[in-house]
């Protein structure tokens, strides 16, 4: 299992840039060490003219139309997992929230909470990953903050990002606009992030190791918009998985959302792990996969557009919207019978027999 714990990088002989090998409380106390940490590590990795000014606030150019504004915090363990790490995750998480709200993400902030003793090399790897992800998602890190907390008060490294984007018309009206006959799509195989992190955290030696889907959805949303695909609602299926999105939409629309188990795109790795652990891929988290509702008849064109974008080549139609019956979300299982889909209850636990 490729679980890269922060401690491993202690053994890695990085060039010492005068920071020492580990984060100490002094790195957060406003003195020379902190200034050097910010300028030599953070600004050096993420450099752009807004950040380089090192002011208390970034002064940004005015933009056209309404702003979208979103924030998210990241506390994932382990910090590095197959397919991603806390750095790229913290960029994509906020960028995707903006993208599915119909915005072009422009700028993000980066708040770092570092635990005393964190290897500097781990921080460097995370910052390099933030930089690469920001470039891929076409956003700039324009302001930030760094705090150091005593050993034991955090788990290595926590990140908060806040993002600003400009809304691009037409904006999907949202789940209250769902109508009977609408079709439901996902932009790729589901459950990859949750299973990758679970496998890495608990050192489950799956072969091949499941990888996270962590990636920006900016391009996929823009492609749908540019192609003129009419959209009812778009949502990234993070915690609680696709099931949580469907439940939210069913409640907002007062309609029933029906999905077909046989149509759900699931990789063999995720399927195998879910079978073994007694989990349902519909309940497992994603970090680069969205649910899209389009009017009846628009799904094949929407799928063609999505599949032309690298992040959504595995897009699929998974179900449709119909008149409300007793349950808000139902799944048709293999034998053709339909069952209500339960809402996830806390963290999934492995079964024992």
């Amino acid at each position, binding site marked *: 299992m490729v679980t890269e714990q922060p401690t491993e990088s202690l053994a890695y002989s990085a060039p010492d840039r005068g920071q020492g090998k580990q984060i100490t409380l002094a790195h957060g106390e406003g003195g020379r060490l902190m200034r050097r940490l910010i300028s030599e590590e953070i600004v050096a990795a993420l450099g752009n003219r807004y950040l380089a000014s090192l002011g208390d606030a970034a002064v940004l150019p005015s933009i056209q139309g309404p702003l979208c504004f979103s924030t998210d915090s990241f506390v994932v363990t382990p910090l590095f997992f197959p397919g991603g790490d806390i750095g790229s995750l913290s960029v994509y998480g906020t960028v995707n929230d903006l993208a599915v709200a119909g915005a072009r993400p422009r700028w993000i902030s980066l708040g770092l909470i570092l635990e005393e003793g964190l290897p500097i090399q781990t921080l460097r790897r995370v910052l390099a990953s933030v930089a690469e992800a920001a470039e891929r998602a076409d956003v700039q890190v324009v302001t930030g903050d760094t705090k150091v907390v005593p050993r034991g008060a955090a788990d290595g490294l926590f990140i908060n990002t806040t993002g600003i984007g400009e809304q691009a018309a037409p904006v999907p009206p949202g789940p209250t606009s769902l109508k009977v006959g609408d079709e439901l799509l996902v932009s790729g195989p589901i459950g990859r992030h949750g299973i990758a992190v679970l496998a890495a955290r*608990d050192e*489950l030696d799956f072969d091949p190791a499941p990888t996270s889907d962590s990636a920006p959805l900016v391009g996929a949303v823009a492609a749908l918009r540019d192609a003129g695909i009419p959209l009812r609602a778009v949502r990234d299926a993070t915690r609680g998985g696709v099931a949580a999105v469907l439940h939210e939409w069913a409640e907002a629309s007062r309609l029933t959302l029906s999905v*077909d188990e*046989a149509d759900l795109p699931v990789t*063999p790795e995720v*399927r*195998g792990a879910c*079978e073994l652990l*007694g989990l349902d891929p519909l309940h497992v988290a994603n970090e680069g996969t969205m649910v899209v509702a389009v009017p009846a008849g628009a799904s094949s064109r929407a799928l063609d557009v999505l599949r032309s974008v690298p992040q959504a080549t595995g897009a699929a139609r998974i179900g449709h919207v119909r008149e409300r*019956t*007793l*349950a808000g979300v*139902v799944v*048709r*299982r*293999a*034998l*053709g*019978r*339909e*069952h*209500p889909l*339960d809402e996830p*209850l806390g963290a999934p*636990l*492995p*079964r*024992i*027999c």
Partner: protein
Amino acid sequence: MKYLDEYRDPAGCRRLAKEIRTTATRSWTIMEVCGGQTHGLLRHGIDRELDGVVRLIHGPGCPVCVTPLESIDFALDLARRQDVLLTSFGDMLRVPGSRQRLLEGRGETGNVGIVYSPLDAIRLAEEQPDRQIVFFAVGFETTAPATALAVRRAAELGLDNFSLLVAHVCVLPAMETLAANPNSSVQGFLAAGHVCTVTGHACYEEFVSRFRLPVVVTGFEPIDLLAGILQCVEQLERGEASVANCYGRSVRTDGNTHAVELMGEVYEVCDRPWRGFGVVPGGGLKLRPKYASFDATERFDFNSLPIVEPKECRSGEVLSGQIKPTDCECFGTRCTPESPMGAPMVSTEGACSAYYQYGAAESTALTEGAKS
């Protein structure tokens, strides 16, 4: 996916269901012993598919559900001790004790850990020599060989900070208790496929000749379940009772002899109270005297407080197949997975949880056919 798709083939399932319907000249009552089978039957709607032809009664085969409250209270007590890390499988940690549940214990003390294998607990004991690592050993013959291996490994390593709180149960004695009950309406059993993978099925011969009830070793996928039910119905229609193996890809006559030997080396059979059943003669396993030093009940003191079972909870009747979960007045109202009154609503293998999860109250039967 190999070993899955061929056992979920809708056409094959419909063929088997039709054969069951044409074979049965009356309604038969069959108990599936294992909670995993209960979930398979409900998840795929097999119970409703066979409505009027086969009445399925859900058996006691959820080890988490039958673990006595006293053991859970003992585990909670251990988790509160600063020098102890209590480890177990995930399911066990959500089961309420008489006053609290283990995951709440974790919030309070941080001394509860989920592991996937008892050998992970051994590794923890090696890594943390100053801490007592206790593994809460629950499960049927499916998990007992793994915990036996952990004890033997601890003995080889000379670990003095590892112990086991043993709540292992054996499935055959519970079937005997059920079959011997004059009020039982069960006419045939689907034996638990994974238990039989360890024990084999030769051990059921004596049961069958004593009670004259068919025992069909059955797996967990829809094709497995339907094939098991068909075999059972065929025997009942012919007036026969024998042991049949419908899970041949996993179960051999003598089972996994290596695992059985390991279990026998570390454990001996004992009488054990089952939640909802009372004491089942020969229904549990305990450590042999040779390994008694790894017994948590010997190592730690525990002053048991009087046990109070919630009066309204009818899990005992559910576990012994006397009522269906939906017959309980609390089901889905005062008792839900978020706020369970009894173990069958907690464990993912529990019958009440299966009924809740697959929406017994609100699911709608659709016309046959795979898709719209």
